[in-house]
């Protein structure tokens, strides 16, 4: 239900656009897209850029809906972000995770806050630097506790650095983001927080992309994950194409390799994300 509702909201927003003033101070594609936990970023990794096209004197509102379908699982994540003056990003995401072998759905809500500490993604000498948190509340903790998780909520803290290099590779713009995340979350929080093997570790997440033209980016992401439950939790990776139709609408399509989830191996599949901003 939720994805359809959000699609409706995005459509409505696009229809209303000509009637409202909007934040458009950033250059197309430079804010990136919506991350699966609600923050502005790539699909998997929260980036140092803040969501939406707001610059120093603008406020941007964005909504998104993403769907990941791998062999035995399906994730739907919808939410939105408010970007205050390119300084503070407030985000929300609601995730529903269908576990097909057990015919059940796990749900969590994530509230995020990100502050830009330094720099500009394009123009500053050093990379843009942001500090963020993602506070996660698991609505369906029974499975997590059965597997040995210690908590049904947790707060990730991350530091992200990102930079766009104009014309770096044969004239094409290249961008990268590196994020260090302190987290207790098992499978992003859907299997709870902490466990017999650990209760908080530092993880690394990396994204690289090339802009093929001003509307189209291709890239790849890699995200390490802890193994608190001792289920050989896998790192995640993707290869993506993001199409920035204009400053109000973008579509991301990705091929995912999520490794083993809850010991069920070879979770590969597809990811589609739609996002609207004004």
């Amino acid at each position, binding site marked *: 239900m939720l994805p359809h509702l959000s699609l409706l909201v995005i459509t409505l927003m696009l229809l209303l656009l000509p009637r409202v003033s909007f934040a*458009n*101070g*950033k*250059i*197309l594609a430079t804010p990136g897209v919506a991350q699966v936990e609600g923050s502005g970023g790539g699909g998997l990794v929260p980036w140092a850029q803040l969501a939406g096209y707001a*610059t*120093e*004197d*603008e406020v941007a509102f964005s909504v998104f809906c993403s769907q990941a379908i791998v062999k035995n699982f399906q994730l739907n994540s919808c939410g939105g972000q408010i970007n205050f003056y*390119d300084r503070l990003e407030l985000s929300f995401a609601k995730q529903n995770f269908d576990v097909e072998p057990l015919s059940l759905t796990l749900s969590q809500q994530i509230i995020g806050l990100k502050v830009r500490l330094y720099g*500009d993604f*394009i*123009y500053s000498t050093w990379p843009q630097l942001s500090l963020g948190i993602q506070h996660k509340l698991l609505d369906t903790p029974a499975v997590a506790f059965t597997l040995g998780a210690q908590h049904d909520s947790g707060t990730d803290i991350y530091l992200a650095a990102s930079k766009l*290099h*104009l*014309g770096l*590779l*044969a*004239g*094409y*713009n290249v961008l990268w983001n590196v994020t260090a995340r302190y987290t207790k979350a098992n499978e992003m929080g859907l299997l709870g927080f902490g466990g017999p093997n650990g209760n908080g570790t530092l993880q690394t997440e990396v994204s690289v992309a*090339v802009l093929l*033209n*001003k509307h189209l980016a*291709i890239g*790849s992401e890699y995200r390490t994950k802890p193994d608190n439950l001792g289920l050989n939790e896998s790192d995640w*990776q993707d*290869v993506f194409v993001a199409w920035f139709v204009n400053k109000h609408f973008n579509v991301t399509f990705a*091929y995912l*390799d999520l*490794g083993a989830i809850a010991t069920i191996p070879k979770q*590969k599949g597809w990811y589609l994300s739609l996002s609207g901003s004004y």
Partner: protein
Amino acid sequence: MAKLVCKSLPKCGFNFFNGFFIMLTLLLSIGCSSSVTENVAKHSTKEGEQLYYTIGGQAGIERLVNAFVKRIAQDQVILPYFAKSSVKHFKQGFINHLCATVNGPCKYTGDTMIDIHTGMNINEGDFNHVVELLILAMEDVGISYQSQNKILAKLAPLRAKIIKI
């Protein structure tokens, strides 16, 4: 195809991704070599002057600046910044400045970026909007995406001497 190779190798998952990066590298190197041949064919150039010739030399820069002025003239947000400017003076100055910026055989002798923009109090959004108008102008005169980015890379460091002063 990737699947066939996969069966005999452990760590299958990475093949697809390796393949992607190889493709990406190939794609970029093709883009690179084609633009290099393009300008070697036209001119034998000194080190660093390629960009100037790739975008059509002096005539190319004049075409670009004319297109840029047209774009500004049609823009309600940016035009007011030019209320007290002479179009002729701006064109001459920017042609010369751009030529020097892309390592062309020119020397920019006009006012400094700081002198020109002091008191204009240009914010980040309007600065980016001018960048967008310049990109549109580069598209208008048929400058390739790769050359556009190289020009922007040379202009980007000037931002600190232009905004919020």
